[in-house]
């Protein structure tokens, strides 16, 4: 494939490391848990990886192009989850249409929120990165507070997906809802969709060029500020999509924004700040690592903290081996 042929030696090495690491995880799982539990663990890891990807991809795109580490990305997920939940509960159109309406509303609200935040708050601070961090941090706190005031502090129960997504199937001797498969496919579809957008369209080429040097893009006659806004909107909408996608599976809680934000930051750092491909791969790596660590701690150590720590240890390890992350920007 052309993509692999033209990779830099560092990125080829990263692909090798990722393949070896994933192979190792699978071998450990098979050896320690047996085929069925290993299969279930990998499935859980993929599911988590895809959910994290929806938040992390936006974070990575926004950081890559705008150099803004958007701490409000988790809050966008939270808003998407709660707004979607409200639409589902209030619209009364039957499970299928209600869920569709919930998804569409969450994505639209996420996009609108992103537009307002970028145009009204972030844009005046493009040359002040510290201010941006403080601003998005504060914004996240405000949005969480607003969600709590409006929807109350109690967690929301998972909503019921339509019958065809609620059916059960058996995988590795475990009965699972089709909705879980749907989340994996949704994540994969977004992964491929954004990849095609970035690699096969003019706007994608502009975004990739802007990630390297937005000033040069501007000097070519392209309104880079408009592209900044589009990317921010896309990133916010993806996070909101992640939020509503979680609700039929786990329900909604006020903590979900921060939980996924931390995972997303780890993913973006491991993948390489600003690298979309890196984020996609690191999402899978982090999802699988956490699932295997969870299973290991359950089987051997009875220490759930191991699962939490595992991804942070992985991040430290990656940064020691490759300080710019697996697929970080090459230096000029």
């Amino acid at each position: 494939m052309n993509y692999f042929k033209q990779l830099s030696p560092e990125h080829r090495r990263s692909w090798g490391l990722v393949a070896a690491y994933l192979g190792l995880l699978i071998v450990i799982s098979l050896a320690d848990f047996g085929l069925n539990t290993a299969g279930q663990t990998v499935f859980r890891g993929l599911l988590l990886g895809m959910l994290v990807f929806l938040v992390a991809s936006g974070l990575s795109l926004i950081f890559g192009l705008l150099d803004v580490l958007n701490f409000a990305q988790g809050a966008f997920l939270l808003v998407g989850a709660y707004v979607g939940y409200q639409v589902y509960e209030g619209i009364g159109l039957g499970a299928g249409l209600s869920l569709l309406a919930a998804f569409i509303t969450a994505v639209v609200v996420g996009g609108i929120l992103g537009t307002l935040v970028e145009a009204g708050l972030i844009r005046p601070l493009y040359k002040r990165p510290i201010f941006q961090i403080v601003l998005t941090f504060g914004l996240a706190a405000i949005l969480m507070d607003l969600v709590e005031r409006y929807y109350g502090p109690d967690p929301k129960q998972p909503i019921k997906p339509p019958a065809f997504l609620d059916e059960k199937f058996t995988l590795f001797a475990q009965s699972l809802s089709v909705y879980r498969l749907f989340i994996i496919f949704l994540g994969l579809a977004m992964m491929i969709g954004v990849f095609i957008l970035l690699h096969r369209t003019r706007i994608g080429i502009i975004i990739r060029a802007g990630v390297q040097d937005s000033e040069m893009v501007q000097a070519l006659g392209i309104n880079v500020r408009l592209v900044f806004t589009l990317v921010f909107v896309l990133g916010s909408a993806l996070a909101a999509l992640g939020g509503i996608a979680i609700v039929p599976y786990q329900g909604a809680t006020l903590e979900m924004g921060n939980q996924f934000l931390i995972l997303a930051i780890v993913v973006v750092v491991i993948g390489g700040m600003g690298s979309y491909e890196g984020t996609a791969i690191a999402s899978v790596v982090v999802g699988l690592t956490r699932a295997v660590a969870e299973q290991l701690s359950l089987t051997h150590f009875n220490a759930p903290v191991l699962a939490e720590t595992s991804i942070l240890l992985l991040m430290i390890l990656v940064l020691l081996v490759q300080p710019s992350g697996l697929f970080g920007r090459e230096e000029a």
Partner: protein
Amino acid sequence: MSAAITTAMLEVQNIHTFIGQFHILEGVTVAVPPGSITVLLGRNGAGKTTTLRSIIGLTPPREGQIVFRGQAIQGRPAHKIAQMGIGYVPENRIIFRDLTVAQNLQIAERKKGDLERKADFIFNLFPDLKRLYSLRGGNLSGGQQQMLAIARALVPDNHLLLIDEPSEGLAPVLIEQMMDAIRQLSASTTVLLVEQNFQVASQLAERYVIIEEGVSVHSGLMADLVNDTELIKTYLGVA
């Protein structure tokens, strides 16, 4: 300073530009007649690159005026200035490393079909680029990147090209190639060049402006400058 050229394609009039709190340009005046190659000369750090960046709007001047084809452009956003027909080839080339040669050229299109229309002209000028078309920008050599950077500025219909240090870091044989290309393209486009290598500058340009510590101190015809060894020695440090 020589008398101002009233029919200039570009007139930079006494601009003052700051980078952060540093006053980099303290009065630069440049006139570029249409169809010419004009070169900005001066020692390292004199303000030549900042002058080009001020013109394209990346480091806008705080004072003074920049008139391009009769319109004042200072203070406009860089993309609007570029859209008026100014191409910019920066000092360090800034090729988009993750994009292919083809994509590096496509991104410069301002109208659909620009690249298709200009392809023959560009590949005549830089035949190597045709062979490298599907290669990533990051995989090109320094000379190839320089060719691509100039080719990129040729994709849209530009009236003026700002080219910063085209010979920097190139082997002598590539410098010759580059000079040929700039000569050829100057038949259809006006060029304002920054060039540290006086040999290259003197062979390419018809007019010059010397910038010293952020101030334009001399300008005129290159033919006169090459015979003025005193001036060359004083401002350029070349014997």
